[in-house]
């Protein structure tokens, strides 16, 4: 069985400073991994480096995705391969409606995979379903991407995009931050809806509260650019009780 993601000794530099200092992680189909760690431990750097954000310079190590060299792919190609990054701070894009954006993105990915465009009725039917699942307002999809959206609305919007794009691997960067309990439950529903035996999930989080609703198979503790401890879901609870200092 080919792993979805196989990272070996990954080193990443940002603004001339080494943030990831040899990170190793393997995600097999069907697995849900959670990466926890303090602020500044390198969690978001991992997410951005995987997605190919400019300015995140890989200085060592390897990362393969479904057997391909992930690092050789451009950002949009990684997306086309089914890698989805749920942003910690999704940007506003004035003048581009959510519907237009999502449809363009979906069809670009389909094109990358050699599939034809999704026809408009199917697309609309799909999006309305997902909007309902996430308890969102469809009208908001006619507005510009994230413009005037609250923090919670943006996170839900990320989930909507994820459900529409049906990625093979979803990397969710602090998707739970800034959400009240009701929103957290809804977002968790979205995440659970995408869980399947052929997909992988990487949850990046500071707190374990999301993990109450989305149970991980593995929990990793990231500290100073390396994974220093790995365990099952009980590790998250332990971290919450004792804090990072005692556990890691």
């Amino acid at each position, binding site marked *: 069985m080919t792993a979805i993601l196989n990272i070996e000794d990954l080193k990443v530099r940002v603004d001339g400073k080494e943030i990831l200092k040899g990170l190793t992680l393997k995600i097999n189909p069907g697995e849900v991994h959670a990466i926890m760690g303090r602020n500044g431990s390198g969690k978001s750097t991992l997410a951005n480096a995987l997605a190919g954000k*400019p300015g995140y310079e890989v200085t060592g190590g390897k990362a393969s995705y479904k057997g391909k060299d992930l690092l050789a792919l451009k*950002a*949009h190609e990684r997306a086309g391969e089914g890698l989805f990054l749920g942003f910690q701070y999704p*940007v506003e*894009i004035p003048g581009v409606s959510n519907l237009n954006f999502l449809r363009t993105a*979906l069809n670009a*990915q389909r094109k990358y995979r050699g599939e034809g465009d999704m026809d408009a009725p199917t697309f609309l039917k799909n999006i309305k379903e997902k909007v309902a699942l996430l308890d969102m307002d469809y009208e908001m999809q006619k507005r510009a991407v994230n413009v005037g959206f609250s923090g919670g609305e943006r996170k839900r919007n990320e989930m909507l*995009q994820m459900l529409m*794009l049906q990625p093979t691997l979803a990397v969710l960067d602090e998707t739970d931050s800034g959400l009240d309990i009701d929103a957290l439950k809804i977002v968790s529903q979205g995440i659970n809806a995408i869980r399947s035996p052929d997909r992988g999930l990487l949850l990046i989080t500071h707190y374990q509260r999301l993990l109450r609703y989305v149970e991980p198979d593995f929990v990793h503790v990231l500290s100073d650019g390396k994974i220093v401890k790995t365990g099952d879901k009980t590790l998250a609870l332990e971290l919450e009780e004792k804090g990072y200092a005692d556990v890691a």
Partner: protein
Amino acid sequence: MSKSATYAKDAKHLIPGPREENWRYADLSLIRGNVLPIAKEEPTLHKPIPISKWPRLVIGNGKVVEKPETLKGLEVTFGAGENKKSATAPADHPLERINNDLATAGVQITISKDYNLAGLEIIFVEDGPKESARHLKNMIVLEEDAKAKILLRTLGQRGASWVNTVTTVSVGKNAGLFLVTDFEAVQKTLISSLIKAQVYKGGSLDIFSLGIGLPSLRNEVEVKLKGKGARTNLKGGLLAAEGEVIDFVTRIFHTSPGANSDQTFRAVAGRKGKTAYQGRVVVEKDAQKTEAHQSCKNLILERTGEANVKPELLIFADDVICSHGATVGELDEASLFYMMQRGIPKEEAKALLVRAFLGDIFEGLNDQVLMAHFEQKIDTWMQQNLVGKKK
């Protein structure tokens, strides 16, 4: 003295140089020191393809080529018009002066009181041998309570030539004109267009212009708001690719109280492209309760692109609300990455962002046909200047 002799003599000193304040960004290199002769009539004319399904007036190489059998509610005459003779006082605008002397063609339209002209497409097309000039003089008059939507197109299909248009516009009491200007030109062609408008009490004038795919465009609009409640709304897009200079100049004079003006311009400079917007708003002493806003945003897509902005406010009344805003920048990196992360290739993401950037100028255009025409122009431009060119 013959016309062309006067022209040759005057043009030498009339063509403004880059040191002249109002012309510091314009590219008049085609006509500087190289006085182009007036275009003679040519036998060949490639008939232009109309954009709209509206009635059409087509003037090709200075001659009336097509006109509707009847036009209800309109009075139309052709030629350089009588207003040419009335322009006895020398204009202080150099290209207008040349136009006054040399205009040989044009159209004068009067839309009678209360009439509603749903649409009219006027096409000036210049075709034939290279290196000549055409000066066109037009007049559009809306009588009281008249309404009109006019598409004014200038097509310079003649290489290395100059099309110099002066259009005077008068919008009567409570009348409303929506004027859309469209330009097309082949290599080295210079288009200079000057619209001089007056808007009377309660009247409104909307002008939409897009300068795209043109070697050199000087697009000037001057509006005098002469009565209470008069308003004008100018919107435009400037897109300059390699070697192109798109130079927009607006002057709005608020001469009486309670008038409004609003300007929205968006400029995009590609590699070696140059855009310039100089917008002046003058609020005269008696023009209290004026509201005047200007917005000009600029995008520079690539190195060697150039954006110039000069938004002036000259205000001589106190009870006013005036503002202008200008920004210059490149495409937002974070937005680009966000789009790419969702699977959209970089060049396509750029094009989407540029289109979004231009979105504001299309607000209020409310015409599917025109919208499609301009969007297609923009798409073609981006195809040539963004998508085609990989880094």
